[in-house]
């Protein structure tokens, strides 16, 4: 294996081989997570800082669990305890962290580009756990894992992503990663929720007619719609959004028999998905995605830090 990356910041720096290496290692970690004792000593002695500068429950707990199950020492840094509250600049905070001699910084920030800024100032590896509207590469990895696990392949699949493409860091990583793996990508949204240039992210097709596209899709990836105030909102009401773009029971008849439903969570039931589709026993892989989050994060932590493979083989 030739995995030469120090950071996971920009998913487009990862080749198809790199991504497959993560997914295949994630399979091994899935096996670990099925055990009674779900902990391996792989990263014993490594220190990881989870620097979450904006609220996050899911991504943060997923990383924390992944780190604990790999036996590394982790420290949560951020939220109301951040020095930013006291007026310290991010660069000074980063320099402080660097002086702790940690091995890895996992960072979530509301500003695009912060993981790269951190990487410039620390010796540690950096994982982007979501930066502004830019990227969220571990989300892309866990999405790929969930899709790959069901289909046994990625190449040649047609993935439709529905929703707020323009303000989505998930798309910023998922679309380039899907393209790297040989998928076809269609983005489906009202023009008010599209980025200026979807083609720059790698989208092959753009549509605002979900019913016309559904029959073509192997994967229907629904994005969360922000329940924002309606003044100046990019759609007139949640009701109309649901009417035009919601994945509903009625629309299921347009889907291929084996087509999957993905969602990065948390779901707005009745907006982008109705409960029938969200809980669909054959199609919905939404909870598999959550589980895959632990397994793929264990895999990427392990690959970036280069831990031992103790305990991996039962």
């Amino acid at each position, binding site marked *: 294996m030739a995995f030469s990356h120090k950071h996971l910041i920009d998913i487009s720096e990862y080749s198809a081989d790199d991504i497959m290496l993560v997914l295949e290692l994630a399979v091994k970690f899935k096996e670990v997570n099925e055990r009674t004792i779900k902990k391996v000593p792989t990263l014993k002695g490594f220190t990881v800082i989870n620097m979450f500068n904006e609220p996050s429950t899911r991504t943060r707990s997923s990383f924390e669990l992944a780190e604990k199950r790999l036996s590394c020492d982790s420290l949560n840094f951020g939220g109301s305890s951040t020095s930013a509250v006291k007026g310290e600049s991010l*660069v000074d905070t980063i320099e402080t962290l660097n002086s702790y001699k940690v091995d890895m910084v996992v960072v979530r920030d509301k500003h695009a*580009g912060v993981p790269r800024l951190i990487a410039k100032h620390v010796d540690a590896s950096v994982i982007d756990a979501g930066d502004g509207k830019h990227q969220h590469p571990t989300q892309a990895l866990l999405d790929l894992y969930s899709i790959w696990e069901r289909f046994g392949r990625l190449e040649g699949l047609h993935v439709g992503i529905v929703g707020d493409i323009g303000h989505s860091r998930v798309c910023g990583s998922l679309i380039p990663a899907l393209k790297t793996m040989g998928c076809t990508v269609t983005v489906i949204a009202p023009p008010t929720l599209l980025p200026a240039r979807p083609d720059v992210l790698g989208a092959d097709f753009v549509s605002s007619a979900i019913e016309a596209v559904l029959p073509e899709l192997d994967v229907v990836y629904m994005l969360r719609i922000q329940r924002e105030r309606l003044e100046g909102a990019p759609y007139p009401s949640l009701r109309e959004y649901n009417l035009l773009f919601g994945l509903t029971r009625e629309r299921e008849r347009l889907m291929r028999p084996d087509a999957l439903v993905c969602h990065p969570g948390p779901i707005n039931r009745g907006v982008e998905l109705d409960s029938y589709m969200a809980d669909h026993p054959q199609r919905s892989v939404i909870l598999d995605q959550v589980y895959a989050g632990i397994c793929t994060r264990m895999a990427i932590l392990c690959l970036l830090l280069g831990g031992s493979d103790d305990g991996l083989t039962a």
Partner: protein
Amino acid sequence: MALLLKNARAIDPACGLDDVCDILIRDGRIVEVGRGLALGKGVARDLAGKIVVPGLVDMHVHLREPGQEQKEDIASGSRAAARGGFTAVCCMPNTTPVIDSAAQVRFVAERAAAVAKCRVHVAGACTQGLKGDTLSEMGDMAAHGAVAFTDDGRGIQSSGMMRLVLDYASMFGKAVMVHCQDEGLVGAGQVNEGVASTRLGLLGWPAEGEELEIARDIALARLTGCPLHIQHITTLRGLDMVRAAKAEGLPVTCEVTPHHLFLTEDDITDDYNTALKVNPPLRTAADAAGLLEGVADGSIDCIASDHAPHAAWEKDCEFEVAAFGMTGLETALALVLTKLVGGGLIDYARMVELMAVNPRRVLRLDPVGIAAGSVADLTVIDPDAAWTVDRCGFASKAANSAFIGMELTGRAHDVYVGGYATMEEGVIVE
């Protein structure tokens, strides 16, 4: 005090001069231009191999005084101007407090008289506090030396208010200089909307946010007859509107910055280099190419740096948090010499029009030429000086330049203001 500048190639398009000759200066004015001039008492300098042009003017700079002296002040900013080859600058009113009264205009003028190394002309605010809702005392400011009016840094959002500004200003015979930015379209935009905004996950600042106000302000210049100067134009379509306005005979002029000519949105990489965060943002390669054409064909009147110094900590942070703007006083001339003159796009005479003749015209300043009787504001250029832009080499307090590390050919060698050297052989004369 007499000064004789010998053997330089003197270029002044205003009087059709391009010849190696001597320039005799006495009491701050040029008294004779010719060959083989001699000097009884005084200083003679041999400038063989150098080029002397009418003193350059940077009509768009932020000197940050009063109130933002952590970024720059009149002393440091005017030294940066001298180092860059400028004999005069026009400073913008978005200081703290805003330059929106005669008292503020006088403050800057008096500070400049005490500490500056170039002439400092003041642009007063069009509206009180740059808020865009109440006219400022433009008459009193004009009486105390304001050379133009602008709410630089923001667009005046209300068309009715903009009309009022142009109507009112038209009685003072000064230009209104406009920063075209429609807030409804621009909002919190960070980079050009399109490839850069999508690639970087940043809010877009669309070209239309600039072009709409250019179109509106040209229409209002037609309505009011007030001279209108479009600041830091960045788009091809915006420039075409200026061209059309000129063809119609409207009193419309425009300027472009070196960074909008020589950098594009493609230069902002995954590195999120905050030095490249400027307002208006860097546009597409097609826009930059169109602007270069405008510089060459005369539709762009002036090159101005929009020198926007910031303290290191205001730039060494998240891209979205970083302040907009880059410095330019100390790189503008060398960039123009290297890329435009050196690149064969324009000649020296056109450079002088863009950086000396036209800025004075727009600001309604007395012309300066290389002819007997003119004020001796002169810039001496070493056209062969090869140098590298160095982070530590600035006279400005700030180093937020995206051109650091760039190798350039040509720079200012000496600068004379009213016959006195402000810089000699690259060193500020204190």
